[in-house]
């Protein structure tokens, strides 16, 4: 029990869990806000084309709840019956028969189910957000690594020499891993759920999970709350098994071989889960996989039976059996190997190989410059290269997630095509003629409408009456469209006139251009915040240890006694920070910039910046392209300013871990809280500072 308290309730463990929760909340809240923002822009953009997406979605949802789902259940039953008849006619296939019968039986449990509409977005967001699943792994794996280091140290020898220091201690440690896994799920997954309740509203936990269209094929009679609980339990179970397996492997092959085996196993499991399609013959490898269990949702949003020697077994049942068996076996192995057996190092031949390789490398070790050595310290010794890779993967994930919708329609597009460019008298006249022409057209239509109404009163022939009524409807629709167009044309003409007045007043040559993409780029957006959250996390994790690394090994005195150990080191470190920041900043901001270019496109980038109202205060000539470049430079400078703070924290911290924690508390925590809705902390929102965007 004391071991449990020592491992789980230590300030270090609680801080790690809290920090992971803060990172998760920051990333997840950014995801939710960006999703909502993208939906709104999508709706608006579709609205401009006359498509009411919201109405369409509502109708589809209503149809699903009232009709489509029940038809689906009926279809499954009928399909099963037809399949059964077919298989009787064709060559006998026991598995198909059994599978058909099982499918029918599984779905028959759902007869009489009632569906209820509710807020689905929150549950969908919790289900779809994958980063949380990977963050869940951190705390239990860190605990396992800590326990391994503990066993290796003199303290390990000491504990093993005591009465309770072997099997009982190991049992408590296994229990600690399980509890920490459950706590991680509760804090991270639960945190996501709470956030969505606040952000989207109550999802109504008591309605059937099938009320959410994504769970249409789920054959279990579960409520939304029941599903969330079951998925959480499955995640905790898989997390425990995952951590124990890593523990056993590293304890058994306590060398580079252990890491190699763990890496190959984790990589292979991940690829099998990702690459195998659910209907493949080898789908056992996809579903009986710890990554599938960690995802958990796959078992509730798919229906699949696995073929076990000709017998169909539900993939959820198989998975539960697999996980439980694996848990028992791994726990027993842990008890035997770590608690009972004498510590023995396996894989020494691998160590000898590693030693030979290290000797070879050392023989050919290049003599770097001080700059090169500082780079090695940052990227290799402090694992900066791995961090760069992770940031790259997160950037790629953002690239896939982010979509930019610019609200434009045919009328405005046509107008811009004709008149974008410098505002000339000729363009103004032509634009005014268009407005006048539109007004005349409306007037003509109104006269025509009035005439039709007169005809309607004077005609008695039924066929003619019908024709007149059709004409009236057509003319009314025409007038409505023309009025909308007139409204748009007037707005466009007004902005042309405003630019012309500005040009006359200041002598600057502001252009009339399509501004939507620029508005999206220069104004605050949740998507850009997501990019900046990843950037801030990179800066904190990459640079908080840069100077604390020297403090940790007490090398500062030694370094400072050398010729280049003062300004030389600082300069080299500063250049590395600037280079890496420029790279990551350009990459992450570039994700959003490229999306804008790809999805919307910047019109006339050579136009003067004053063409946009927000830049009309600029007193000198500058193009919009230069503005974009300067804006990116400004973002780099903002990141550099944050780096200065992180460097100061690092300089005065005793160890990289303490520096990381302090930097997270100073830079990430207020940002996370502000991003998740506490507006009082906006002033300390460094994510917002990194965007440099206008409100």
């Amino acid at each position, binding site marked *: 029990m004391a071991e449990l308290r020592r491992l789980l309730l230590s300030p270090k463990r609680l801080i790690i869990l809290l920090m992971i929760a803060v990172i998760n909340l920051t990333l997840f809240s950014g995801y939710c806000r960006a999703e909502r923002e993208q939906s709104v822009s999508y709706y608006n953009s579709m609205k401009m084309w006359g498509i009411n997406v919201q109405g369409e979605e509502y109708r589809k949802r209503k149809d699903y709840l009232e009709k489509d789902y029940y038809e689906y259940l009926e279809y499954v039953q009928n399909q099963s019956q037809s399949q059964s008849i077919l298989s009787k006619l064709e060559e006998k296939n026991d598995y198909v028969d059994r599978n058909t019968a099982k499918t029918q039986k599984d779905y028959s449990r759902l007869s009489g189910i009632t569906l209820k509409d509710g807020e689905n977005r929150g549950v969908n967001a919790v289900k779809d957000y994958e980063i949380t699943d990977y963050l869940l792994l951190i705390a239990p794996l860190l605990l396992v690594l800590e326990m391994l280091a503990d066993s290796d140290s003199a303290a390990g020898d000491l504990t093993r020499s005591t009465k309770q220091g072997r099997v009982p201690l190991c049992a408590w440690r296994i229990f600690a891993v399980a509890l920490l896994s459950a706590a991680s799920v509760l804090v991270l997954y639960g945190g996501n759920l709470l956030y969505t309740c606040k952000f989207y509203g109550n999802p109504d936990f008591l309605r059937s999970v099938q009320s959410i269209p994504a769970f249409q094929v789920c054959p279990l009679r579960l409520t939304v709350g029941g599903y969330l609980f079951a998925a959480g339990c499955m995640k905790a179970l898989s997390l425990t098994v995952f951590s124990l397996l890593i523990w056993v492997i590293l304890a058994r092959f306590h060398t580079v071989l252990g890491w190699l085996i763990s890496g190959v196993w984790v990589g292979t499991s991940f690829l099998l889960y990702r690459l195998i399609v659910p209907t493949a013959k080898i789908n056992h490898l996809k579903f009986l996989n710890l990554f599938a269990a960690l995802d958990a949702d796959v078992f509730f949003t798919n229906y699949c039976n696995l073929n076990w020697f000709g017998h169909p077994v539900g993939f959820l049942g198989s998975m539960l059996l697999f996980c439980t068996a694996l848990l028992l076996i791994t726990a027993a192995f842990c008890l035997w190997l770590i608690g009972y057996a004498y510590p023995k190092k396996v894989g020494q031949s691998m160590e000898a190989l590693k030693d030979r390789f290290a000797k070879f490398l*050392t023989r050919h070790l290049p003599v770097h410059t*001080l700059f090169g050595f500082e780079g090695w310290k940052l990227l290799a*010794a402090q694992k900066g290269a791995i961090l760069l890779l992770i940031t790259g993967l997160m950037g790629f994930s953002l690239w896939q997630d982010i979509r930019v919708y610019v609200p434009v329609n045919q009328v405005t597009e046509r107008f811009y095509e004709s008149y974008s460019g410098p505002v000339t008298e000729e363009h103004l006249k032509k634009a005014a003629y268009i407005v006048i022409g539109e007004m005349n057209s409306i007037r003509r239509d109104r006269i025509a409408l009035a005439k039709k109404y007169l005809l309607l009163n004077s005609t008695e022939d039924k066929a003619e009456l019908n024709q007149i009524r059709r004409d009236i409807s057509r003319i009314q629709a025409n007038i409505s469209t023309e009025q909308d167009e007139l409204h748009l044309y007037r707005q466009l003409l007004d902005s042309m006139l405003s630019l012309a007045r500005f040009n006359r007043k200041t002598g600057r040559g502001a252009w009339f251009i399509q501004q939507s993409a620029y508005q999206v780029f220069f104004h605050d957006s949740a998507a850009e915040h997501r990019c900046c959250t990843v950037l801030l996390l990179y800066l904190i994790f990459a640079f908080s240890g840069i100077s604390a690394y020297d403090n940790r*090994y007490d090398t*500062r*005195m030694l370094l*400072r*006694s050398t010729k280049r150990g003062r300004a030389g080191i600082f300069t080299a470190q500063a250049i590395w920070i600037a280079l890496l920041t420029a790279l990551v900043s350009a990459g992450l901001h570039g994700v959003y910039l490229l999306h804008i270019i790809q999805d919307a496109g910047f019109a006339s980038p050579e136009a003067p910046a004053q063409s946009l109202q927000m830049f009309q205060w600029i007193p000198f000539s500058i193009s919009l392209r230069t503005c974009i470049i300067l804006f990116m430079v400004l973002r780099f400078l903002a990141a550099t300013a944050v780096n200065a703070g992180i460097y100061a924290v690092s300089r005065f911290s005793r160890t990289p871990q303490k520096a990381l924690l302090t930097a997270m508390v100073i830079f990430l925590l207020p940002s996370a809280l502000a991003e998740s809705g506490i507006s009082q902390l906006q002033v300390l929102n460094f994510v917002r500072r990194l965007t440099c965007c206008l409100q």
Partner: protein
Amino acid sequence: MANKLEIRHLSKQYGDFWALSDVSFTLESGVTGLLGANGAGKSTLMKLMTDHMPRTKGEILWNGTDIRKMGRKWRELVGYTPQLQGVYDDFTAKRFLYYMGALKGMKRADIRLQTEEMLEAVNLTQAAHKKIGTFSGGMRQRVLLASSMLGKPPVLILDEPTAGLDPEERIRIRNDIAELARDRIVLLATHVVSDISCIAKNVLLIRGGKVIAFDTPQNMLADAEGKIGEFSGTYGEIRLLQEQYPNGEIAQRKDCFVLRIAENPLPEDCTPVLDNLTLEDVCHLYLKGDRQYG
């Protein structure tokens, strides 16, 4: 002209406490042993000599030029081994020496050549590819010593360079230092007095931030003659006497116990030790009352 490092009226104050007070001495080529109790001011003196901290008063002159004015040029001339084993666990021994070479502003070819030489000198060639994190305390100390000798600086400031070394290694390192000190200034702080007695040209004794002796070991030993004496008797008698001379050293002889004391003048009933005087006795004499010197 031989190099000369002069310390003139050097003082360092922390708040109301004077860690060093009006310290003056001159170092020339050869090993100078620095002895003093914990808190005597040895580390402060070394930090001032490596320009790690500002001094309150006084001067440190290298061939007549203040080291502060020299800045980087002074640090180029100094090889330093700190007391704390400040080395990166993630570096291999060779990479660490390369890094130190780069920090010292050496040319790449020189770094490569001298690293091989120094690894050989400190007997670490076979472990050059291993991470320092896997090294014993003695091996780490040897890495530091090698790093201080890189660039062959004319001044070596070594803070307990033989701490944690086994006897064989200690002798080897001591010989290396003696060899190096033939044409350079070496200031060696240690608590192993035998290290100094074999190779030191001069010994500097510090107490309470002040220099209490700076002389050759031979002169110090001559000065101690007649001030070191021994009582002999049963264990019980010796224990009683030790209450009177708490800094006395008890030793067991063939048929009795002795208590060796350093007093000026010696008590009448104490037998003076006339031969086999050691530098340890000198330290007892000068630094008695201090809990630990070195």
